[in-house]
């Protein structure tokens, strides 16, 4: 299996562990990730300029098309954005024509010949749950995880085609493979708040805190994410923005690739565990109880 690896803007500098852990986890399954000179997925620009958003995404799609590679991205915003662009380019012929006219300046064009995948779909569908189950050497029994779905991969379902938008199960299925328990929590499908960070911090943090309180009340040891922005929100932002007297109530976040990597017996170093802002030790007793804990 070979994919063009779409990292997005944030991973290289803010969440390097997502890249290293993704590579580490995919390698044993024989998945090759190819780096192309991608640009921004377009999402941040959609608020201001629809056309720019589509062009940004279309350029990435066209680059991958040129290499005849499907795209895989570990970020749900990037996924949603690329899928939206695909949707619009299919739907609106005038848009397609105009975008291709700009792309032609670089010798590129969008034809719609490749697919965009999210990392979780690749794991669940392309690699397959049986192979993942087979790769587990250290099941994480005793750990209770709240799966955070992230909005942009899930909705709108007629555009993103990810999973059932109202009752998705892919993430819980994948977490179950690691041996960890999942909880059904009321705010499972809600927004992490990151899209509003820097725009309305109070609101952004309120959304985040509602989710962490809910996860805690549901008995989760940690929140598991599979999105760059969600992880940044629950990890770096939660760590930086939680007042001193409330730090006890923080709920750490872990990337799915890190969780899977640990259960696959990969080294903490390759998974970048120590680069998470909220130390994994905060997982508390549950973590210590893991077989072969460190």
């Amino acid at each position, binding site marked *: 299996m070979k994919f063009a690896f779409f990292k997005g803007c944030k991973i290289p500098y803010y969440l390097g562990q997502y890249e290293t852990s993704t590579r580490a986890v995919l390698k044993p399954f024989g998945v090759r990730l190819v780096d192309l000179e991608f640009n921004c997925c377009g999402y941040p620009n959609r608020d201001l300029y629809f056309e720019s958003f589509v062009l940004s995404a279309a350029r990435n799609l066209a680059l991958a098309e040129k290499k005849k590679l499907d795209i895989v991205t570990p970020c749900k915003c990037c996924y949603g954005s690329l899928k939206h662009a*695909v*949707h619009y380019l299919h739907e609106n012929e005038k848009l397609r024509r105009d975008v291709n006219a700009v792309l032609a300046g670089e010798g590129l064009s969008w034809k*719609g010949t490749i*697919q965009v995948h999210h990392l979780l779909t690749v794991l669940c569908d392309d690699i397959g749950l049986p192979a993942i189950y087979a790769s587990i050497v250290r099941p994480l029994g005793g750990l209770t995880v709240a799966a955070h779905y992230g909005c942009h991969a899930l909705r709108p379902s007629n555009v993103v085609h990810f999973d059932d938008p*109202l009752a998705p*199960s892919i993430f819980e299925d994948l977490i179950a493979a690691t041996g960890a328990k999942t909880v059904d929590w009321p705010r499972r499908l809600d927004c992490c708040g990151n899209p509003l960070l820097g725009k309305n911090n109070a609101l952004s943090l309120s959304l985040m805190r509602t989710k962490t309180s809910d996860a805690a009340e549901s008995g989760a040891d940690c929140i598991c994410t599979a999105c760059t922005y969600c992880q940044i929100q629950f990890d770096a932002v939660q760590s930086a923005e939680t007042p001193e007297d409330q730090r006890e109530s923080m709920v750490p976040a872990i990337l799915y690739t890190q969780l899977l990597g640990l259960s696959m017996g990969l080294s903490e170093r390759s998974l970048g565990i120590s680069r998470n802002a909220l130390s994994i030790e905060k997982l508390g007793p549950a973590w210590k109880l893991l077989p072969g804990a460190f």
Partner: protein
Amino acid sequence: MTLPKSHNYDPTHVFDVMVIGSGIAGMAASLFAVNRKLSTVQAGSVGGTLFTSGLFDLISVYPVGEKKLWENPWEALDAMRRDGSRHPYNRISKEDIQVSFDEMISFLGASGMKLRFDQNRNLKVITSMGTIKYTYCVPDSMWPGVEAYETKAPCLIVDFNGLKEFSARQVATTLREEWPALRSLRVAFPGMAGRDEVFAAHLAQALELSETRIALARMVKPELGDARFVGLPAVLGIKRTQTIIAHLGRLLGVPVFEIPMMPASVPGFRLKEIFDSELPQKGLLRLIDKRVMSVNRAENGNFLLNIGGNNESQVIQARSVILATGRFMGKGLLSDRQGIFEPLFNLPLHQPDNRTAWHHERFLHPAGHPINSAGVDVDDSFRPVDAEGRPIYDNLFAAGTILAHQDWMRMKCGSGLAIATAYAAVTAFIENFMKQSTRESA
């Protein structure tokens, strides 16, 4: 280690049943099908269950024009049968109706929504309008309200600043004559004190957290007085209702109950959550209907559901379809100035001759509006039929409110109709196909 199902499906698989629609009828049909080990796929939108009040009606008014209320729903069914009504209930035995209800009730009970009913008696529930509604069974969360009304015990109804659809004072004032011990209280919902408006689902979400419940109880408790029950608008959580009811009851020292209100209805959200999350675990494949492009029929009679969008298009094959798309709100029936039609299969419909005859000039006309009894005519196997009464397809069934000759809003039979006809459709399919194919293979 057993492998959980993949969220992906095998495109070559031929499903036994394809349920189209995601209201109560669609959900019930899916439930009955998966419970019978039929491989089932369901296509439906969000709507449907979201608009349900949480009450499960069987029947309480018949005949509609006389506004005759029945204490015992089964007797109403008998009366209807005696009159030779064409109501779909008359195509199902009372036993089957009973069985279908039991199966639904046990499923919901196992999924965290206990339903309470009194075998041969309709329950009386107070609504946010201050009316008393007859219904067959209610969720656990509304049960103390039934008891409270019956005993007319001292009761405090609480509402919240900014929840504009619910006035405790309205309920209490309207019912004062028959229930003098009813009082009302308004409080600011914890954490939302500064809001102009609050919304039911948001209150429900907030109550999922124990801190909110503690804060709420702290405000209500001093005002309890002699109240032996506390009634609240139906906002007591979506996922953890039982915990919330129990917790609030403990904190207040008296039973707490919910009063059904208009959409967006939290009990509807609750029901949707259960169906959405539990049915797939029983093996149901669910598709959101935004992905369903069209339905065709293969040469061998199987139905082909085209799903997808953009560049990807997949076909799902099923041996039968249960059409449970509902009426106008569910888009099971569409209408224009010329008439009403069924968009998926273009089924012939029983309908008034012209639009003048659709509605009365009075909204609350006792006879109910003729358009509401229009719909799909079926045979005893719940297969849509043509003008001559012959089934249009031997493997197409219809269930729920799309059926003709019923006015669920006036007869108060929506849920019962949905559940019983879904049951009948699934069993008819098994009768006609599974046994037949078993015979064939034997």
